[in-house]
């Protein structure tokens, strides 16, 4: 909310420095987003045009003799066309400083001009909101008056943020009340009694058909004259960001900014029988608003209608058909209270928000209806209108329920004690009524506050007034509890382990556009059949939830100039039984130059597998893993393995499908490993096996077997066949080609043998190996390569 400081000072004594006011507001819970400083303007005074004539040497110029009070009248030429003798206007005298120029003595077409008639723009006001040409003032403004000083144009404007619970403070008086209470100085509120009270006269009849209108104060004013508002009001409205329209509309806006209560004025001549009905809109009912916009309404909208048509979209904007104009002689004032939820829904549905709705939708206090009407009546009377009796319809005002508040709760929640006397004074300053009652205080919130309903709310009021700085830092002694950190600890260990293995952590967006699926399809791969879709994305780039960490990883690797290594821990999303579900995953990958190697071998794959096993060892404490060749979406069909533990699949490791790698723009082959975090078995503490004190020996065997026998099977078969003395059987080389028959391969396996209680002799070792080889010969048809 834009708050002109000059206006605020009307109601409360404030420090001169705007930054000090802003700081105070911030400490009260109303942070100031910006302090808009006003430009320095000097030497601008009010002048009355005594005479106006044609410039002797220029058709388009006029020359005026301007009375400026004490001094001699000034002769000033102007090109403006909205000037006439008798007007009181803004004059910049010689030496005046304006935002963009300094006024000097100069000749205009041979005639010396002793100053300049200026427009709103030269006063740094939004000129499109003011008269075209020279700024006009009321006759009552004495010639010679310093305009900047009189209208306090040098005062800053604060952009104040007001939390949604404090709609009462979306007003000058509301903020002034806070500042007055904080500084312990009086609030100088304007007169808030209704001059129509007891006046009798004409009454508008209001029928309330919807419970969403809680209260409606109506009041008729006759003898209304519109026209333009006085300059002070137009200036204040403009600085507050509200466009001046005409005297009547300006009064309704002015009162809203001052009291938070939005008002609406109807031209009484356009309302048959002066009868207004608050009802649901009819299906398809047409509504042309004040601003000319046209809408078709549904019964979800609430309207205020005459007996024939909707004349106001409740809480939002009036209709063009009954708007007040310069011809309006009699008006009906509406100061109403609506259900905030109803106004919010309607505004959202129609995509239509106004200053009025931004207040209504936060649920104003019903008591403000009388305040708004009274303040408007004061200003309308000042404008020459005649007030009639205000009449309130709807629910009667009920006093707020008292809150029984334990004084000891101050200490319990804030950590410090305040004497009851001070608590009472603090609350009193904000308009609360406080009565002591046996270790308690019985607190009644003021009628304009709807946000204070429980003891904790009262404590916040006390804390705000006493200052949050009174809260003293203290480290709590946290008692032992039963809550475990399992999942997070695992994620953190995953990250540190992969970082130690040389992978760099990345964090990417979980939302993406359809382009990801286009790319996948272009690679000849099927994208997920039922992706999780966002119903209300801000852009098409946020339409889908990622189904894999792969695409973002490939995009990342594509950006690197050469080989790169990265990992990501994050959730993936999928649909099951129409429910969107999520699973935390880890995905690590590297891109690497292809090696010069035969088609049945891939060193990079073995590296990826090595990283996978090292990772699993760190995570699970185990050191032996089984891998089975398999196929998985997104991976190369012939270079992929699944890692099993206790027969359960826990990881997929392999080369990423080269078609995907290509369409995502990575220039090198990519190897990756993905795991579901929750599938990782818990850490199993390894148990120490004392190694044999006797030396081990080994035999390297070159076994020729069918090309499709996996090395892992030969290893484990050898281990079994070699018996208890075999401590390891590890393949270390593979050969296919002219040295072995077609369809066969040769695998070199090192078998390590060791006895726990003696040195193994060569003869023993040879015997074991011979026995093992013959077993394998029988089971797999292997032969020893010559």
């Amino acid at each position: 909310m834009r708050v002109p400081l000059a206006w605020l000072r009307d109601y409360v004594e404030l420090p001169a420095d705007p930054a000090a006011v802003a700081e105070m507001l911030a400490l009260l819970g109303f942070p100031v987003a910006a302090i808009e400083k006003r430009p320095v303007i000097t030497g601008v005074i009010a002048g009355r045009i005594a005479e106006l004539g044609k410039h002797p040497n220029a058709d388009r110029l006029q020359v005026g003799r301007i009375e400026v009070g004490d001094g001699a009248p000034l002769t000033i030429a102007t090109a403006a066309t909205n000037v006439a003798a008798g007007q009181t206007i803004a004059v910049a005298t010689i030496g005046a400083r304006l935002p963009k120029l300094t006024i000097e003595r100069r000749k205009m077409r041979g005639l010396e001009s002793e100053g300049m008639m200026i427009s709103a723009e030269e006063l740094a006001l939004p000129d499109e909101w003011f008269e075209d040409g020279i700024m006009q003032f009321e006759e009552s403004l004495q010639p010679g008056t310093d305009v900047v000083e009189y209208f306090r144009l040098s005062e800053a404007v604060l952009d104040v943020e007001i939390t949604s619970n404090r709609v009462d403070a979306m007003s000058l008086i509301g903020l002034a009340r806070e500042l007055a209470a904080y500084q312990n100085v009086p609030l100088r509120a304007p007169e808030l009694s209704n001059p129509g009270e007891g006046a009798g006269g004409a009454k508008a009849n209001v029928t309330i058909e919807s419970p969403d209108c809680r209260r409606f104060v109506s009041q008729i004013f006759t003898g209304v004259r519109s026209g333009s508002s006085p300059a002070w009001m137009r200036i204040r409205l403009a600085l507050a960001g509200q466009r001046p329209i005409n005297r009547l509309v300006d009064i309704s806006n002015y009162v809203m900014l001052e009291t938070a209560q939005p008002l609406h004025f109807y031209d009484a001549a356009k309302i048959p029988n002066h009868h207004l009905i608050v009802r649901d809109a009819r299906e398809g009912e047409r509504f042309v608003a004040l601003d000319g916009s046209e809408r078709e309404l549904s019964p979800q909208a609430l309207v205020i209608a005459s007996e024939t048509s909707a004349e106001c979209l409740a809480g939002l904007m009036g209709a063009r058909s009954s708007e007040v104009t310069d011809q309006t002689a009699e008006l009906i004032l509406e100061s109403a209270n609506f259900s905030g939820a109803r106004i919010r829904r309607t505004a959202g549905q129609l995509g239509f928000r106004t200053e009025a709705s931004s207040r209504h939708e936060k649920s104003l206090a019903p008591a403000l209806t009388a305040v708004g009407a009274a303040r408007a009546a004061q200003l309308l009377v000042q404008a020459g209108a005649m007030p009639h009796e205000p009449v309130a319809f709807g629910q009667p005002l009920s006093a707020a329920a008292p809150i029984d508040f334990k004084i000891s709760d101050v200490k319990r929640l804030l950590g410090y004690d305040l004497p009851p006397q001070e608590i009472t004074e603090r609350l009193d300053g904000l308009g609360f009524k406080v009565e002591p009652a046996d270790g308690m205080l019985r607190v009644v919130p003021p009628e304009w506050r709807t946000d204070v309903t429980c003891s904790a709310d009262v404590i916040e009021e006390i804390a705000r007034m006493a200052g949050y700085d009174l809260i003293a830092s203290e480290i709590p002694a946290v008692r032992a509890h039963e809550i475990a950190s399992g999942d997070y600890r695992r994620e953190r260990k995953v990250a540190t382990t992969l970082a130690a293995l040389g992978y760099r952590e990345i964090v990417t967006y979980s939302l993406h556009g359809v382009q990801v699926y286009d790319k996948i399809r272009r690679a000849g791969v099927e994208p997920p059949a039922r992706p999780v879709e966002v119903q209300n994305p801000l852009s098409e780039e946020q339409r889908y939830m990622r189904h894999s960490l792969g695409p973002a990883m490939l995009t990342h690797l594509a950006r690197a100039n050469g080989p790169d290594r990265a990992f990501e821990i994050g959730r993936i999303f999928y649909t099951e039984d129409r429910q969107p579900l999520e699973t935390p995953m880890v995905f690590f990958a590297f891109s690497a130059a292809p090696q010069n190697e035969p088609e049945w071998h891939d060193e990079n794959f073995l590296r990826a597998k090595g990283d996978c096993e090292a990772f699993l060892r760190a995570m699970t404490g185990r050191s032996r893993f089984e891998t089975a060749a398999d196929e998985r979406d997104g991976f190369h069909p012939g270079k992929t393995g699944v890692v099993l533990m206790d027969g359960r699949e826990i990881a997929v490791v392999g080369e990423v499908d080269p078609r995907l790698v290509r369409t995502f723009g990575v220039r090198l082959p990519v190897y990756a490993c993905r795991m579901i975090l929750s599938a990782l078995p818990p850490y199993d503490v390894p148990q120490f096996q004392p190694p044999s004190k006797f030396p081990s020996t080994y035999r390297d065997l070159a076994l020729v077997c069918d090309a499709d026998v996996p090395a892992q099977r030969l290893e484990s078969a050898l281990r079994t066949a070699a018996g208890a003395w075999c401590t390891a059987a590890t393949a270390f080389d593979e050969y296919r080609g002219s040295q072995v028959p077609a369809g066969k391969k040769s695998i070199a396996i090192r078998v390590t043998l060791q006895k726990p209680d003696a040195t193994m002799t060569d003869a023993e070792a040879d015997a074991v190996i011979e026995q093992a080889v013959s077993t394998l010969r029988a089971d797999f048809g292997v032969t020893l390569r010559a």
Partner: protein
Amino acid sequence: MNLVDNLEDLRARFEDALKNSAGAGSLDAVRVAFLGRSGEVTAVRRSIGKLPPAERPAAGQRINEAVEKMERALDEAQANAEALEVGASLSQRIDATFPAVPPRQGSIHPMKRVMHDVCAYFERHGFAVVVGPEIEPDYYNFDALNIPPDHPAREGFDSFFLTPNLLLRPHTSPMQIRTMQQHRPPVAVVVPGTCYRRDAVDARHLYQFNQCEGLLIDEGVHMGHLKGMLTGMCREIFGAEQQVRFRPSYFPFTEPSAEVDTTCPLCRGAGGECRMCGGSGWIELGGAGMVHPNVLRNVDYDPDVYSGWAFGFGVERMALVRYDVDDIRRFFENDDAFLEQLA
């Protein structure tokens, strides 16, 4: 050949071998060849058996003397060879300023590092770290947190919806409810995690971000404890001199509520023309406050017995301030230079 000739011949060949050996390594071979278990000396010793018994002691003694001499010669040669090698090594001169061979090193993402540091701080003080789903129903996101439908505060949580009732959580606070539903007080947790809001993206805003939530509930927990813990956390993350200030604010799930500021680490609170804090001397961290009695009632905690606080801070924002990063979007771009510099 008799024994003496044998020994003479052996010594001659030993001298040759010693002369021809190069370096400490090959001396071992000489030692094995002559003095080893199946070495030449052993062969000569065996021949003693063929001598008449009377000659045997003298022969044995001669052999022993010969062996001793050979061993001494070997030891001497060994010492000389090692001295030579060490000498050669010591005379080497390299260019120590040549660039290092970098290890194959990974890194933790800078945002995650801040997250881990925050969690570690709270873990040290007895808090558990819990994580929860990113897809949450209305109930956990809003209703249970004292934000009924049509509440104006829902506007501040402009959320991505997946179904009419399921949304991507706009804050980590649903885990307050889930945790309290599962456990009775005392409850002391921090909740790191990804959140989503329909915010337009710019240098200061993201539609996806990470939050770190904190929750402490027990008898006698007050707002001073909140300030104490947050001050400690800020000192851990931003520096030992950090101060924390509370400003009143509004969140439906806390009362009293506060905005939490910490001293701007760049200007150290001096303000002026500081580009980090815009001259205020303070950095906004996020919201906090005493858990609203309605929230406690929603999980069957008695607000007259238990009290507690919660806070929720943006992790990218903290990282932005900690590492003086110019644009928050960098935390999702994973530019190599960015990750490398902050590794």
